[in-house]
């Protein structure tokens, strides 16, 4: 789920960036530092949409670095248990398949794939129904439900299922 929230961060800036462009430097450094990161609480920071305010800088003894408290608005993406997501399949193997929904990697175990879909090994490993009408392979788009998340410092990993009503392939690259 996406959220637009305000976060705060202390940015350390090297004195060489002081001057007219201090603010720009600060913001660009913030973007560089923050975008794409992941925190357990908020999930992935997708983009910074605005700066609320920049506090007064404090010079740190000894280094000359200045730290600025910055409040910024950003879009974060945090998957939740039970959430329905659409994701792109990135890898298929006999244990299931991996799909990505933006920065989040989701694993769908073969136990969580409908029983009528069977793993077909080959050049393009895939899960196919017995009549061949539905096929999950790399680059397929699937709709899945997250049943568990694991949040690391730098990564959110989810387990999903497509063994439920209205879940499964929504767009097949081969037919499209």
């Amino acid at each position, binding site marked *: 789920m996406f959220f637009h929230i305000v976060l705060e961060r202390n940015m350390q800036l090297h004195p060489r960036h002081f001057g007219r462009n201090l603010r720009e430097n600060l913001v660009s450094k913030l973007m560089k530092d923050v975008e794409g990161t992941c925190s357990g609480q908020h999930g992935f920071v997708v983009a910074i949409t605005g700066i609320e305010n920049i506090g007064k800088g404090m010079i740190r003894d000894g280094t000359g670095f200045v730290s600025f408290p910055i409040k910024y608005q950003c879009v974060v993406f945090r998957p939740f248990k039970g959430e329905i997501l659409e994701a792109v399949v990135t890898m298929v193997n006999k244990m299931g398949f991996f799909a990505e929904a933006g920065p989040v990697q989701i694993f769908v175990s073969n136990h969580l794939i409908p029983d009528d879909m069977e793993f077909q090994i080959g050049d393009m490993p895939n899960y196919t129904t017995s009549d061949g009408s539905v096929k999950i392979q790399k680059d397929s788009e699937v709709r899945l439900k997250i049943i*568990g998340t694991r949040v690391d410092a730098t990564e959110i990993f989810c387990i999903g299922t497509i063994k439920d009503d209205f879940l499964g392939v929504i767009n097949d690259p081969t037919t499209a």
Partner: protein
Amino acid sequence: MARHRDEYDDEMEEEEEYDPDQAIDEDDEEEEEEERGGGSRRPSQKRRRSDFIDDVAEEDDDEEEEEYGEDDEAYGGGGGASRKRKNKRPSGSQFLDIEAEVDTDEEEEDEEGDDDFIADNAPDLPEEEDGRRMRHRPLMQEDEQEDLEEIERNLQERYGKSSHREYDEDTTDVDQQALLPSVRDPKLWMVKCAIGREREVAVCLMQKYIDKPELQIRSVIALDHLKNYVYVEADKEAHVREACKGLRNIFGQKIMLVPIREMTDVLSVESKAIDLSRDTWVRMKSGTYKGDLAQVADVDNVRQRVTVKLIPRIDLQALANKMDGREVVRTKAFVPPPRLLNIEEARELHILGDRKQDRMTGDYYQTINGMMFKDGFLYKAVSIKSISTQNIHPTFDELEKFRKPSENGDGDIASLSTLFSNRKKGHFLKGDAVIVVKGDLKNLKGWVEKVEEDTVHIRPEMKELPKTLAINEKELCKYFEPGNHVKVVSGTQEGATGMVVKVEQHVLIILSDVTKEHIRVFADDVVESSEVTSGITRIGAYELHDLVLLDNNSFGVIIRVESEAFQVLKGVPDRPEVALVKLREIKCKIEKSFPVEVKYKHKVSVKDVVRVIDGPCEGKQGPVQHIYRGVLFIFDRHHLEHAGFICVKSHNCALVGGSRANGDRNGNSNSRYDHLRTPPRVPQSPNRFSRGGPPSNYGGRNRGGRGHDGLVGTTVKIRQGAYKGYRGRVVEVKGPNVRVELESQMKVVTGKSRISCLLGYLCIFMGHNISVMLAVDRNCISDNVTVTTPYRDTSRYGMGSETPMHPSRTPLHPYMTPMRDAAATPIHDGMRTPMRDRAWNPYAPMSPARDNWEEGNPASWGASPQYQPGSPPSRAYEAPTPGSGWANTPGGNYSEAGTPRDSSSAYANAPSPYLPSTPGGQPMTPNSASYLPGTPGGQPMTPGTGGLDMLSPVIGGDSEGPWFLPDILVNVHNSGEETTGVVREVLPDGSCRVAIGSGGNGETIIALPNEMEAVVPKKSDKIKIMGGSLRGATGKLIGVDGTDGIVKVDDTLDVKILDLAILSKLAQS
């Protein structure tokens, strides 16, 4: 008991014809006897009964001892009473348990006994008899169809079935109380006897009793678990003495009375914790099936036997042979593999079994050669002692086999639930989600609120239920839902964590966090946890993801640690080969990893990111984890097999981005070897130099970039100038200048806390591994700051040599530098950027140089760790020394030394002996053409540099390298052979005249310095000092401390601590 009586009645039908009268008569007699004192009443009774009452019945008698008097009557009368009842019962009820009624009967009889019950009973008897007959006849007819043996066996079977257990179950506490011995009862005496003769003694006493009925003892008990004693039951001690008289195995002097209170303990069976019930998993302790998992099918507590269900290990062919009466060749070693019996198969081999029905269960068994089979399983009756019941942890494989194809669901649960008995204490914790698996509340979910001994209080999920329910632990099982993150806390997968993807009854399928594989575990073995681990990650000295050398000289990366073994991805490129390896099959861990060349001549070391551009793993990308024998182990996060490891040939890979080995790892060993490896790359061809461009080009980048920042805070050692040897922390890097806060002696130096080091060269140590040369001198600034760029270095060399004003320049520096450069150069050439990183990379090849600097003592440069005499390679390194020393030698040799050729050979050769991969390097020729077999391109040594370097020692003039001297023992490598010799004479050109043989008796040859290495002295060896101010002195090595040797110098008797590298063993003369 009741059953026994039934049986006995059935059996003894004929007897019953006269039974009524006789019973009365006997009762009368007994009464009379009782009046007489009851002395020999019992024996007669026993003998009479012994015809038809089995042991069990007798036991019962014993137990009811205190009621004895009445009991006898009860038998007669009780029988009558129960018979009365039996009349009313449907005829099939004979097999029903009427125990309880009998008990009450007895009690009634007790009372009745006081009345004139005989009179009451007498009229009943005939009538009862008829009833019995009517009921019994048809049964007999049935039985008659089978032969007598069959009947006997049936009886045996029925008798054998545990009336005992039922008895236990049915008797209430009150009944039990009534049975307790009282003061009026005979006492129990403990009599000492010979050890191991307890049973014999009991039998002897019994015999004696039979022979002489006047003995007044009641019973003798020999307990299996009590050695040295038997118990004798008698009213008086004198009776016991009387009985014991004349028996040689009894030591009758001391007869102890067992207090009444303890009497019951004598006979109570120690209740072992084992409670065997059906479906429990056990393991066989002995025989063909030793270690096999078995399931209890039936328990016979009386005979201490259990029937277990096993997967048969039967060699059908052998069986067939045996049944055909053919010779059976007995091969002891061969144990047939467990396999379910296939009847069809057996039939083909003409093994015919009978189909029989089990009387008790009604199941049909196939009986072959005395073995009972059902559904392919073998049912075997074994002694309880031959199975082990504790800590049985069946594996999934084993359980799988036991699971019948048709059976699922319930059957599985039942068997699984029996596994719970093995769980540890404190299995349930407050807050655990649990599910009830047995009983009325089955499938009720809840949360643990409180845990008592065996009872777990749970808060049920259902609202209507009371707040908490107390449920036996055995009826509960942990409950998980898909998506839970759990940790496995026991079993083979112990320690692994993962997310539950599926719950099948009480088996969870978990997706491991680390291996991304499915793991099957019992719900009981896991706890909810947010931790991320892969399970055990180490056994012994080996850890997950270590590179290890295996027995057969193959190598691989540990990709999984199992409870007893490792899974190793073998170092076979392009074809993933995984081996299961036991701890003992691992030779050692490979720690070193040399940078290796990949496509486009890039050098790659550990941690660099490469992409596989060829072969089956094409497209994979990831950091290099290990390098060995030209094989890279790459870790690809997206590669799910083999824990993400891919094994590829180095030339199938291309470097991605720069080489960005990180500097936070302590890789002493690596760096050390890296250094050794460097020389091949060292030599920059002259044109390289020119191509390198002006140093300043690079300087700019380095100045501006992280390089400088990176320096800040690092510990450095000042290499040259007045503050040479001082260590300090870089506080600022400003253009060419480095401000260093000296660690120790700031006061001594200036009194200021910070010194601007405009004094000369700095040697910077990053972490503890890397040395970088920095010139803080204005002139040298840009060049030296960018130390890492090869070109710079070169230029610096030039400068070094050009600027005689650096008087402190020591000869070793030049030596070191090239190496470092060497290491650094190729990389830089290759990828430009990494330079700086390299510098900070502990694995970077330049580290050795730093080691040297760290010594801070020019004289001991040879002693820096990598030259440690302990390691052969280090010794080899000394080869170059002669060259240098010799350059120093007064007599104007230095001019020669200055010749590029020599110098290059001197130090270029040195490393080569270390290079395992360049065998060609071994026999060194002075002009060093051979020193770089691997890298032909690198060969041409910069003449200018070399020359200048060689000169510098002369300029400095304050150092002497280790050095061959006459009379020392050396190892001479000549044409691939290694021989020991004694240096007889050192020739002006650095080569030595060496007498072969440890005593110097052999022929004399002329060996080049690089063909020799001094023999490392051991403790208490006589040594000669090859370098330093004491050069030439002899002494005795009285101790070794790391790289230092403690030497007692012969002349002065001083004890000196000198570097081992400059010590060499003196030849015995």
